[in-house]
């Protein structure tokens, strides 16, 4: 918990500066008029404190940390939302680290403001809004009072919103109110009522208008540096926003999530199946393309929606469903990737495309039906062998890109976790090794690995020989076994 505050403190300063610049002058214009005495009572009916233990694994070591967050009950059967930012970063961390960084909630406890304590289970975190979901369990008959968001609220620049934030454990009362203003109604990169002056510590708190109607929760704008890429979790560039842009995750967006909460390991994003680069002004000039931005198709993945739709290498996409793509530098690529990801599998999308030919550049429309994106490394199926002290996971699309291998011909499982001083480590394993055979049995998936290792658990050989791919070469690894 402490570490979270420390890491986030850095963002508070620029936010407070913005607050002074933009919010203070408005106070003079029109004062807010919230009945906080009443609101405080309302908030306590559906607010809860979520306490989670989270295991953070970085390949060779695992840390446990505790999180204490403000949660909100959103259904009568006890579905609770909270700020899941810290749980939605696996892909981002993994793509920089080169191996899977994984956050796994190990226990969730929920305390209502009437003092009642409940057990809960972690459900999942939405990749886009970063709202986390947990469900209260073991109370079959109990009906909870959920917050009821108002749909189709008309946001206006200058209208006030209020929320409550959770204060540190050592202070009482635990809640503090905060007021903000709708500062802009953003149209791009997504429709987003922007607020200025809130802090990231208040993410996922319910926002009320002056009639004390819940209109949504505080969330952050699609961050261009977010790793929801078309390639399934691979992007090298950093985003251009240093300060998170906070605003309203509206009731309409929340409703969808509440009806069908994201589940860990379930693909909740769509993809097209291309590798891409930004259409910079310089490249546009070369290709003699008159567009303010776009993306260049550098590769089309076999069997992907893009392949089926007839995309070709060298195509320049400049519109999605008639809307121009304002991407003229690499840092903005993920705007495109996120837009595709959020559309959902099964969506038909019309792309306007320039196709440079030998003589002339054709302009055409390409209709693609998006499909569910491939698994990210952190979502891949895993298998742990406790005796030899290693964990492996299935190869996923991002691995094939990273390793520059073909999916049809290259099979195996990736070593995702090793114990320091563990038997597998002593045998010479490294994180990222791809195990292709165990003993003489080809290993194509974690279930293959599990099946072979299950035999060994019975036979208990003195050593287990692995055939491994590392750095574009193969090798044999002998792990001396100790069976207990």
């Amino acid at each position, binding site marked *: 918990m402490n570490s979270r505050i420390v890491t986030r403190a850095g963002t508070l300063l620029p936010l407070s500066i913005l607050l002074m610049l933009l919010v203070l002058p408005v106070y003079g214009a029109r004062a807010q008029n919230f009945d906080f005495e009443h609101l405080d009572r309302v908030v306590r009916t559906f607010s809860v404190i979520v306490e989670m233990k989270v295991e953070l694994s970085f390949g060779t070591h695992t840390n446990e940390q505790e999180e204490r967050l403000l949660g909100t009950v959103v259904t009568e059967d006890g579905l609770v939302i909270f700020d899941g930012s810290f749980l939605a970063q696996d892909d981002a961390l993994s793509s920089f680290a080169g191996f899977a960084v994984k956050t796994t909630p190990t226990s969730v406890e929920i305390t209502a403001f009437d003092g009642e304590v409940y057990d809960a289970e972690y459900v999942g975190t939405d990749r886009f809004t970063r709202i986390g979901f947990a469900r209260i369990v073991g109370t079959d008959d109990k009906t909870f009072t959920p917050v009821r968001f108002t749909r189709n609220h008309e946001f206006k620049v200058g209208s006030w919103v209020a929320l409550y934030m959770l204060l540190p454990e050592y202070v009482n009362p635990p809640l503090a109110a905060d007021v903000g203003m709708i500062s802009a109604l953003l149209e791009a990169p997504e429709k987003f009522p922007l607020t200025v002056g809130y802090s990231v510590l208040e993410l996922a708190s319910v926002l009320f208008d002056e009639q004390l109607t819940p209109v949504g929760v505080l969330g952050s704008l699609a961050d261009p540096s977010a790793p929801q890429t078309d390639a399934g979790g691979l992007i090298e560039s950093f985003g251009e926003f240093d300060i998170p842009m906070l605003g309203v995750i509206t009731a309409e967006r929340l409703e969808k999530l509440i009806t069908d909460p994201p589940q860990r390991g379930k693909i909740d994003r769509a993809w097209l199946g291309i590798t891409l*680069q930004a259409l*910079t002004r310089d490249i546009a000039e070369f290709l003699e393309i008159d567009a303010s931005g776009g993306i260049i198709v550098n590769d089309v993945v076999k069997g992907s929606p893009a392949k089926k739709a007839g995309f070709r290498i060298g195509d320049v996409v400049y519109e999605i469903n008639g809307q121009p793509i304002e991407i003229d530098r690499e840092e903005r690529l993920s705007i495109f990737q996120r837009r595709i990801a959020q559309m959902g599998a099964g969506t038909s999308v019309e792309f306007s495309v320039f196709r440079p030919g030998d003589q002339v550049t054709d302009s055409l429309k390409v209709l693609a039906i998006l499909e569910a994106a491939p698994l990210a490394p952190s979502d891949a199926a895993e298998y742990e062998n406790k005796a030899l002290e290693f964990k492996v996971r299935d190869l996923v699309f991002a691995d094939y890109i990273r390793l*520059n291998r073909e999916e049809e011909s290259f099979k195996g499982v990736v070593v995702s976790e090793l114990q320091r001083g563990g038997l597998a480590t002593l045998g010479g394993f490294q994180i990222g090794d791809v195990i292709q055979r165990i003993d003489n049995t080809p290993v194509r998936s974690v279930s293959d690995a599990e099946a072979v290792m299950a035999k060994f658990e019975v036979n208990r050989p003195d*050593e287990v*020989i692995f055939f491994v791919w590392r750095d574009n070469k193969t*090798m*044999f690894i002998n792990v001396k076994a100790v069976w207990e």
Partner: protein
Amino acid sequence: MAGLTALILLAVVSALGTQTAFSELQQQIYDARDRVLPALVHIQPVIKNYRTGELKKQAVVGSGLIFHPDGYVVTNYHVAGKAERIICTLYDKEQVPAIYVGGDPPTDIAVLKLQLDDYPGRIAVADLGNSDSVQVGQQVLAMGSPLSLSRTVSAGVISTKDRFFSSDYRLPSGERTGRYNLWIQTDAAINPGNSGGPLVDLSGRVIGINSRATFFANNLGFAIPINIVKETTAAILEHGKVSRSWIGVQCQALQELEDYFGAAGTPGVLIASVDPGSPADINFLKAGDIIMAIDGEPVSARFLEELPAFYKRIASHRPGSKITLRVLRDENEYEFSLVTKELGDLQGEDFECSDWGLTVKAITQQMQIENQLQDTLGVYVMGVKQVGAADVAGVRPRDVIASINRKTVCGLADFISMYNDLSAVGTTKILLTINRHGAIRLAALNVDPKEDGPAHEQ
């Protein structure tokens, strides 16, 4: 009383004995010093560094040894490889220029030739010994210019004569090194600048060329055995380079795996990996095969320390030779005949494109394998100058430039002529097609227009 006298006498005799042995040892050291030190050379080459995206000349300091009466000097490749301007200071403090004759990155050896026309003295030539007969514990002297302090002698013993280092170690110029030799380890002080200097036994014969030391440790220095050096220098003097056969196998010590392969007690060399497209690959050798003999002669590598000799054994064939391998596979023996290929350069020639702000290399066969490339077409980006045209356009080190303005780049010569043509015309807009880790992308370079105006006034 009698007992005490005996004690004293013994002490005196013993002291006398030590004195004699000490003087003998001292004399041996003096003799060894006198036989080698006059042939010691302090080397100051200017080497070329292309890593930052521009050609940077770098003055370095190392050591060397005159090993041939015609004024040939042996040193390390990492000291004077492809050096442009080399100043040598001989033992008599006279400065003599030298030229680079040739070098061999895999053994980290380079040969220079002293330009002795204006040298007033007579050069001394060191005797090269036999590194196969050295012994652990044997006393040795290291000579060279540690931290540029020329004519420095340090003493120690041979700590180990078969130290193995993985050949993943790279020279500053990018080549992997150390695949074909073990190392003589010594506790004689070796510091940066000792590189290329001799390790000498007490009979005054050179048994190794000091090349490496371990940072953050004391007295861990490593010399290339002189027998390796002799072969390398002979090849360089004769052909300008060392020619090696390549079959494309990476091997692993058999010891840990012999039971698994049903080869307990059987001598052999375990293939761990086969390079794609290599002679071993096209002849269907595969990981897990155990090579038992080459042309009927048994080979073995139960331990890591035996691997360099095996690799050297393969390499020592004339490229294009037919060799027959007896191979143990699934507990049956098979014979494989294959024709070796020339190993070739580990890294290609460098070229600086100053207008574009990048440096490139020719792609050799070994680079192709290492970088998982389809072929050796194009050029490899070695460095990208910060905020240069290539950097701004998104070109990165390790990219492969496949085409310029939509014209395929076949190799470095092709690239250089295209670059020179574009530079001569003063083209400011360049479109590169780049292969980055298997994916194609475009890079549009905005090259600064050349200033054709009058030169700046001083």
